[in-house]
């Protein structure tokens, strides 16, 4: 078993460089039978994206016959407090009990359990009193975010499941959520579907975001989820970022950009930002629509 000490630095989610830090960690342990110790002495904070990613990375190492240890003594008190609050430490089998605080719980989902996930989004992510949105807007946001989970479970092929964590940033009125899987990645699915291994990762992401495109037609029309989500994000001044392989998609009020980057991650990471203020949101009219449906 190969021993490695993985130094976890402070990890933000401001720029793609912050995500590169995570993907470089994955690169260092992307082998079977690793004996990994997470060391935190250089880490003075970890954002939600890092929490979700490190949780998944831990399960990936374990699923490949490896071992993960936390150098608990190296974790700065503030970081440890946050990791205890959000349940990260206890979920992964180490000391500490989750508490109700300002953090949003870390989650691991091996299967798509609708009731549990909807409760998480409604009550633990959106419904903590920090987001001033009406019930109907809350339900709309949950429905749109569900599309991320539906895609991850259906297409991700992640043998270890889906990992999530959120965070509320009161000063910026932002609510964030990261959903990450360690499956095959969007470019891989698109290349298999198109029977063309030469499609670049950015073009594959661009294709996946087009209305009506899906790698799983199965005789049923599909491919609306990402389209609905991106439209909602664009209209409401939010931000949607997707990292898969070396591809990167960013969707915000300025539009959609797709690019290739230098860092590779085999799975898919989605980072979404919503503004916690109902005045930003455009809702469909309450007018009764009498037009024929079909």
């Amino acid at each position, binding site marked *: 078993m190969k021993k490695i000490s993985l130094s976890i630095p402070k990890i933000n989610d401001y720029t793609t460089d912050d995500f590169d830090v995570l993907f470089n960690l994955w690169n260092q342990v992307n082998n079977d039978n690793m004996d990994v110790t997470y060391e935190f002495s250089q880490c003075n904070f970890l954002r939600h994206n890092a929490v979700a990613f490190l949780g998944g990375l831990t399960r990936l190492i374990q699923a490949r016959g490896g071992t993960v240890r936390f150098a608990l003594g190296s974790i700065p008190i503030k970081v440890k407090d946050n990791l205890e609050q959000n349940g990260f430490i206890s979920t992964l089998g180490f000391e500490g009990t989750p508490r109700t605080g300002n953090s949003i719980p870390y989650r691991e989902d091996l299967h*798509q359990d*609708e*009731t549990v996930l*909807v409760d998480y989004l409604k009550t633990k992510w959106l419904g903590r009193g920090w987001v001033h949105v009406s*019930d*109907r807007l809350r*339900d*709309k946001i*949950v*429905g*749109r975010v*569900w*599309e991320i989970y*539906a895609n991850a479970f*259906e297409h991700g092929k992640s043998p270890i499941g889906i990992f999530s964590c959120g965070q509320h940033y009161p000063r910026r009125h932002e609510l964030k959520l990261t959903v990450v899987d360690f499956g095959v990645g969007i470019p891989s699915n*698109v*290349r298999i*579907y*198109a*029977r*063309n291994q030469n*499609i*670049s990762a950015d*073009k*594959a992401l*661009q*294709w996946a975001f087009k*209305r*009506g*495109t899906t790698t799983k*037609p199965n*005789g*049923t*029309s*599909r*491919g*609306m*989820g990402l*389209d*609905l989500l991106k439209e909602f994000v664009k209209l409401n001044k939010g931000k949607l970022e997707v990292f898969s392989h070396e591809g990167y998609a960013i969707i915000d009020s300025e539009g959609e950009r797709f690019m290739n980057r230098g860092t590779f991650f085999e799975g898919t990471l989605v980072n979404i930002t919503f503004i916690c203020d109902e005045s930003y949101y455009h*809702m*469909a*009219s*309450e*007018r009764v*629509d009498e037009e*024929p*449906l*079909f």
Partner: protein
Amino acid sequence: MKLSVYELVGENCLTMEDGQKIYDLIYPELQAGRTVELDFDKAKIFASPFFNFSIGRLLKDIKPEDLNRLFKVINLVPVGREVLKRVIENSKQYYSDENTRKALDDVLLEQGEDL
């Protein structure tokens, strides 16, 4: 036939599995030319997989004009109607006829190659 979505799947209309449950009940009725009223009272959260599998698929075998005549959706809040209309729009294009559907799949493949 009248069906309550809430009684069948609860307030969350999200998954393919729940969509399939509804489809299995309404499709034979509509196919036989009988009317169906689908009541969304108390249903609150909506996503495309549910509508793709419950309603979008109906367009594969049943003409839009027949669906407009036989199938009625009631008490669906605007948030849900917005998703449903998008799904129907997409399904109509996809199922307009078998040749078009095949052609669209081919186009997708070509797009993949051209990208």
